[in-house]
C-alpha cells in the first residue's frame, strides 16, 4: 500500500466517557461508518455505540484450549502407554485420572496464550505508527484521562469544514485535524 497523504480525520476530545458515548452514538446514527473511539480504559458502551461487531478472539481461544487439551493428553498417553510404560502400584498404564491435571493445565495455558496473542494479532499489533500519534492532545491524554472520537477522512460523508462543525456541535474540549 502506498503511503497515504493528507488528512487522516478529525479528532474530538472529551472529558468524560458519557460525552464520548453520546457523541459516538449520534455519529453512528447520522450515518458515519469510518469512525473510532479511543479511551484510556475499556468503555463497553463506546464499542457498542460505534457498531462494534463480534470478533474472533473467543474462537481462537477455544481452538487453542482444545489443542492444549488434546496435545497434553496424547503426550501423557504416549509416554505412559507406549514410550515408557511403568507399573505404578499395579495400575493400568492407561490411567486417565492421573492425566487430567496436566491436560487441564495445558488447556488453560494454551487458551490463555491464544487469547492474548490472538487478541494482539487481530488488533493488527504490533503497529509502530498510527496517524493519531500526530495529535499532541492524543499523545498526552489517550492513555490517561481523555476520551476521543475520530471521524475518519475515508468516510464518504467527510468534509473538512462541515465535519468540524458537526463535531463541534457535540461541545467537545477541542477538535483537531490529524494528518497521515
Amino acid at each position, binding site marked *: 500500500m502506498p503511503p497515504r497523504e493528507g488528512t487522516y480525520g478529525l479528532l474530538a476530545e472529551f472529558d468524560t466517557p458519557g460525552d464520548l458515548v453520546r457523541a459516538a452514538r449520534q455519529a453512528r446514527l447520522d450515518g458515519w461508518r469510518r469512525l473510532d473511539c479511543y479511551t484510556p480504559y475499556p*468503555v463497553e458502551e*463506546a464499542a457498542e455505540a460505534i457498531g462494534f461487531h463480534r470478533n474472533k478472539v473467543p474462537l481462537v481461544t477455544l481452538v487453542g484450549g482444545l489443542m492444549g487439551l488434546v496435545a497434553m493428553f496424547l503426550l501423557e498417553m504416549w509416554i505412559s502407554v507406549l514410550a515408557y510404560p511403568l507399573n505404578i502400584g499395579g495400575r493400568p498404564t492407561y490411567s486417565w485420572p492421573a492425566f*487430567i491435571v496436566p491436560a487441564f493445565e495445558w488447556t488453560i495455558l494454551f487458551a490463555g496464550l491464544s487469547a492474548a496473542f490472538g487478541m494482539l494479532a487481530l488488533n493488527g499489533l504490533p503497529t509502530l505508527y498510527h496517524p493519531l500519534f500526530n495529535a499532541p492532545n492524543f499523545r498526552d491524554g489517550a492513555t490517561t484521562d481523555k476520551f476521543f472520537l475520530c471521524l475518519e477522512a475515508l468516510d464518504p460523508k467527510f468534509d473538512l469544514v462541515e465535519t468540524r462543525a458537526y463535531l463541534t456541535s457535540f461541545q467537545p474540549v477541542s477538535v483537531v485535524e490529524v494528518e497521515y
Partner: protein
Amino acid sequence: MGMAHNNHAKTLPADLGAPAFVDGWKTRALAIGLVSSVIAALLAFADGSIDHVLRAWLLGLVLTFGWAVGGLALLMVQYLSGGKWGLLLRRPLEAASRTLPLVFVYWLVIAFSLKKLYLWAAVGDVGAALKSGWISEAQAHAIEFKRPMLNPTAFFVTGLVCFAIWGFYTWRLNVLGLERDAASPATTPEWIKRFENISGPGVLVYSITMTAAVIYWVMSLDPTWYSSVYGLLFLVGQAYSVLALSIIVAISLSKGEPFKTILRPTEQHDLGKFTFAFVMLNIYLAFSQFLIIWSGNLPEEIPWYLDRIRGHWGIIVTLDFLFHWLIPFTLLLSRDIKRNKKRLVRVCQWMVFAKAFDLFWLIEPNFKDAARNLHFSWGILEYVAVPVAMVAFWVAFYCTRLQTRPLVQTNDPHLAEILEPEHVHA
C-alpha cells in the same frame, strides 16, 4: 459550554418494598409444596417405609441449609470484599439468612431420626452387630473408635451450638442492617468498619461450624470414611448454590421495582463470572479428593468411591460430572449468556438441580441397600418429592422474609454508582 454530565443517573423509586408479585411466588411455592408432600406420602406408602423419606429429607436439609447459612456467609464475604454486586444482593441474602428457623425445624427431624439414618447411632452393641453380620469389621472398628464424636449427644450439642452461632450472626447483621439505613450518611465509614469487624471473624467461625455440621450430617453416614477436604467441598458447594439462587432471585425481582432500577447488566455479568469461579472451584476440589484417594488406593478410603461407582452408580457419577460441572461451565463461559437475563436464570435453575443431583450421589450410596447397587424402588423417588416439597416451603418462607424489609440498602457509597449509566464507571 459543557454539557450537563451527571444528570443521567437514575433515581431510586420511593417504594423499596418487595414487588406485589412476590405474593404470587409464595402462593405457587405453597401449592407445589403441598402437592409434593402428598406425592411423598403416597410414595412412602408404596414403598412401605419412611427410610427414603428421611434420606431425601437430609438432602433437602443440606440444600436449604446451604441457602440460609450459605447466604449468611456470602453476606459476610460481601461486607468484607465490598463491590457493587453485593449491594444488590444484601437484602435478598439477609432474607435468606432469616430463614434459619425453618432450617432448624428441618434439622430437628433429622436429629430425632438418628437411628434410622446413621449406622453409628443405630448400632448399640458393636460386638453383637459384628457377630450377626450386620456390620463389617471395618465398620465395627470405626464406630467404636469414633464413639466420642459420633454419638447422639455430641450430634445434638454440636448442632445446637452451630445453630446458635449462625443465629447470632444472622441476628446481628440483620439488626445492624436496618440501623445502618436509618443512620445519617455521615456515619457510613463507621458502619463499613463495623460490618467488617463482625464479618471477618464471622466468616472464620462459619467455615468451622459448617465443616462440623456437614461432617455430622452427611459424612458420618459412612462411619468408616473421612476426607479432610469435606468441609471445604461443601463450603464451595454452598457458594455455588447460593450464587445460583441469588441470581435467580435478583433477575426475577427485576421485573418490578426497585430491582428494575438497580440491576444493571454489568453487575449481572459480574455475578455470572463469580458463579463461574465457584463452578470451577467446586470441580477442582471434588476432583482433587477423587484423585488423591484414587492414587492412594487405600482400603480405608477407596470403598467410598467404589460404593458410588460400581453397580450402575457409574452412570450417576458420569451424569453428575456433566450436570454439575460441564454444563454450567460451558454455558457460563459465554459472555452473551451471562448478560442475558432469561438464559442466565435458566443456567442457575439448572445449577440448583445439579446441586441436588450431586447430593443424591453423595447421600444414597451410604446405605447398605444402595451401595454398589443402584436400583429402582418407590422409595428412591422420594429424592424428588421430598426435596421439592422442602425447597418449596423454604421458598414460601423466604418470600415472607423478602417482604419484611426494603429490598435495597441505601446507606452505602456504592448506591450512587449503581444508579449511574454503565459507561461512567467501566
